[in-house]
């Protein structure tokens, strides 16, 4: 037989062997290439004090209880802060038609404050896509205390303060995530003429996952220097620093922490932290979240 014939037979065999490669490989080659978004960058919608990029799932309602005891340096008389607890109870809801929009509100005993927020996912980290997840957070806080000076003309808008944050987060690997949060705070009313109404801060937060259900979190809010940030009861605002642990069970996330701030809404924890941790102004606290699902299947 000639060379051509052998070549032909060879080709036939090759062809049939390619065919015998199998149905599974064939099927895998037709698999659509879907974007693999990073998930569970953080365990909860709060890193500790500040918002993380996480939100409840689409159409889910989350109930959040936040609690900060008083300062541990208040001694035995106050049972190391037990008697001066501060609380915030809130609800947050992710719209059923888009997981990008999350709204929430809460009421804090600190300053009898009502707070409202909108968190929007702008970009999500993905394999072969964006290296970062980016969300936008705007919050409003309405102070509910009686007017300090009821005899003067007081305006409702004077009770309001706002924060706007860009949340830039990256899940580096399955155990380490980090978030940077450039922040603008605006207070409608400030006590002194040299005080700035608007000022800037930079939030930083990270988590290290130590097991399937436990992670260790840390957070720091840096008030940019050279600004006249309004004093709180005559005390200069401090950078908030917090250290905590997240413990997750089926439907709950428990976050236990120590921190030098007692307010649990953004304007408060960013701009009204007066505790100086080096002097023992440390609060023990916890957040508990519970998710309710109304999704129809």
């Amino acid at each position, binding site marked *: *037989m000639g060379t051509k*014939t052998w070549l*032909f*037979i060879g080709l*036939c065999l090759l*062809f*049939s062997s390619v*065919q015998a490669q*199998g*149905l*599974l490989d*064939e*099927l*895998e080659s*037709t*698999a*659509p290439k*879907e974007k*693999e978004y990073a*998930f*569970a960058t953080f365990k909860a919608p709060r890193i500790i004090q500040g918002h993380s990029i996480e939100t*409840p*799932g*689409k159409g*889910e309602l989350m109930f959040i209880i936040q609690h900060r005891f008083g300062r541990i340096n208040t001694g035995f008389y106050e049972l190391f802060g037990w008697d001066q607890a501060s609380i915030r109870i809130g609800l947050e809801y992710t719209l059923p038609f888009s997981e990008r929009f999350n709204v929430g509100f809460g009421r804090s005993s600190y300053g009898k404050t009502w707070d409202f927020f909108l968190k929007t996912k702008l970009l999500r980290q993905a394999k072969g896509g964006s290296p970062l997840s980016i969300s936008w957070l705007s919050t409003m806080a309405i102070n509910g205390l009686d007017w300090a000076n009821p005899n003067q003309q007081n305006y409702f808008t004077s009770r309001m303060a706002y924060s706007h944050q860009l949340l830039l987060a990256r899940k580096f690997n*399955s155990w380490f995530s980090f978030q940077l949060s450039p922040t603008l705070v605006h207070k409608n009313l400030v006590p002194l003429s040299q005080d700035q109404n608007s000022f800037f801060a930079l939030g930083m937060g990270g988590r290290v996952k130590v097991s*399937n*259900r436990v992670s260790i979190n840390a957070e720091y809010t840096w008030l940019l220097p050279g600004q006249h940030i309004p004093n709180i009861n005559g005390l200069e605002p401090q950078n908030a620093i917090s250290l905590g642990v997240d413990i997750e069970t*089926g*439907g709950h996330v428990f976050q236990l922490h120590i921190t030098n701030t007692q307010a649990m809404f953004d304007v408060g924890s960013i701009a009204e932290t007066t505790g100086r941790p080096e002097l023992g102004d440390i609060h023990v606290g916890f957040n508990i979240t519970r*998710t309710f*699902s109304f*999704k129809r*299947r």
Partner: protein
Amino acid sequence: MKNLIAALLTLTIVSTGMAQKFTTKTGHVSFFSDAALEDISAVNKQALSAVDVSKGEVAFVVQIRGFEFEKALMQEHFNENYMHSDKFPRATFNGSIQKAAPLTWPGSHQIELLGKLEIHGVSKEIRVPATLAVKGEEAQLNLKFSIKLADFGIKNDKVKNISETIEITVKTSMKKA
């Protein structure tokens, strides 16, 4: 010589042309865990499946991330803590139809599938009963079986939030390729 060439040619053509292959990209794969704390179920409606009736081959490819749960948190746990879907994004099955007598089409038959099931990066030979029906341009392949978590290196919690045995149901309706 010419006969040989003709024979080979026919063989090649026959082996391609005769293939009775059916596929879909929207197969349903669901599972159910009946545990003390809460029942957990999930469904994936984008399973790839193919059956080659003439060769008796069957294959499935299922994206782990494609399983939808009642609660987002469950889905997160499933991907992050149990299935490690960033490392093992797919589950696959590659097997053959075991038959006692030749199957006739159109028709519906109780068959057995023998093949390799790969979940969580661990591959295991399984033999499961199934129903295969072919009618004209359509084929339906349904199966239900149970697997043990331990067989696939999936670790349960200490508190046993999920059962040790998971029931898997596969329902596919495929079109002729």
